[in-house]
């Protein structure tokens, strides 16, 4: 989280004035990032709690709703995100080793995977909202016994995957910001905290999806082809 502009101090230009040495600064930044990720866990946690409660209350509606999910797009999206996590991890490793060129290429691949994920998500949303009118509210259409409870299921689907997609967009912006500075040679073996923190954020967003995927797409064993 803590971006860095060089401050005038002896040997390492990136050492901020109030830290004793570089190691203390890096460990502090990583700890700060993890505390921030805990707030993100609790932020999504509120929605997961709502999901668990409603799944307990209206299981039949959850089954019906899950059968309307694009099972294949969901699976492909999971694979896309896992690949983006790989390239992100390799990018962080490349920065630590000081390979500027491979860092930039890996970060760009990560951005492409991120955009691919958002594109697939867009296709899914288009399918649910426009063609099948499953966005909650007056325009909601659903033939089936539990119409109103399925509307709650879709409310959760759009809320949780919507916030996840929002975090994805922030992630893509963050990575492109880091890629630009990496391309200009800001980071290297001596200073890679921003890249590492962006990597932590990206992997966190990936982990949220790792849980969203089974909870929305794999509830019922009957899948839409």
């Amino acid at each position: 989280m803590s971006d860095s502009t060089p401050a005038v101090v002896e040997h390492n230009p990136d050492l901020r004035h109030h830290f004793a040495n570089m190691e203390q600064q890096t460990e502090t930044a990583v700890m700060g990032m993890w505390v921030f990720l805990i707030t993100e866990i609790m932020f999504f946690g509120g929605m997961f709690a709502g999901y668990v409660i409603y799944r307990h209350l209206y299981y039949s509606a959850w089954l019906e709703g899950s059968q309307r999910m694009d099972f294949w797009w969901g699976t492909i999206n999971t694979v896309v995100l896992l690949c983006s996590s790989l390239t992100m991890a390799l990018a962080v490793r490349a920065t630590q080793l000081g390979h500027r060129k491979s860092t930039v290429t890996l970060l760009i691949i990560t951005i492409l995977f991120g955009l691919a994920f958002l594109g697939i998500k867009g296709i899914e949303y288009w399918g649910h909202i426009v063609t099948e009118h499953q966005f909650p509210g007056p325009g909601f259409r659903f033939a089936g016994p539990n119409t109103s409870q399925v509307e709650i299921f879709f409310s959760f689907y759009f809320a949780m995957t919507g916030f996840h997609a929002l975090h994805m967009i922030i992630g893509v912006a963050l990575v492109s910001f880091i890629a630009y500075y990496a391309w200009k040679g800001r980071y290297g073996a001596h200073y890679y905290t921003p890249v590492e923190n962006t990597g932590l954020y990206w992997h966190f967003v990936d982990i949220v999806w790792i849980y969203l995927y089974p909870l929305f797409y794999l509830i019922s064993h009957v899948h839409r082809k």
Partner: protein
Amino acid sequence: MSAHIASKKLYITVWASLIVLTVLTAAVSYLELGPFNIVLALVIATSKMLLVALFFMGIKYISDKMTIAVIVAGLFWLFILLALSMTDYASRGWV
């Protein structure tokens, strides 16, 4: 900080196992296992999470105990929220 830099091979194998687990959980979801469907899906999801967290996020190489305590505390608080609010909904019909 001489951060532990894992070998590229390790990252690839972690990635491969993640893909395998994804395919597994997708395939298993076709079977009709009743209540075990959700249990199995969550077990696989949690193992994928651990893979990403330990290796990609480097929790395995974090030297400072306090950061690990922070991570564990975060998950425990999520558990508090889920478990205690479920005490209400699970025991609604018991009067």
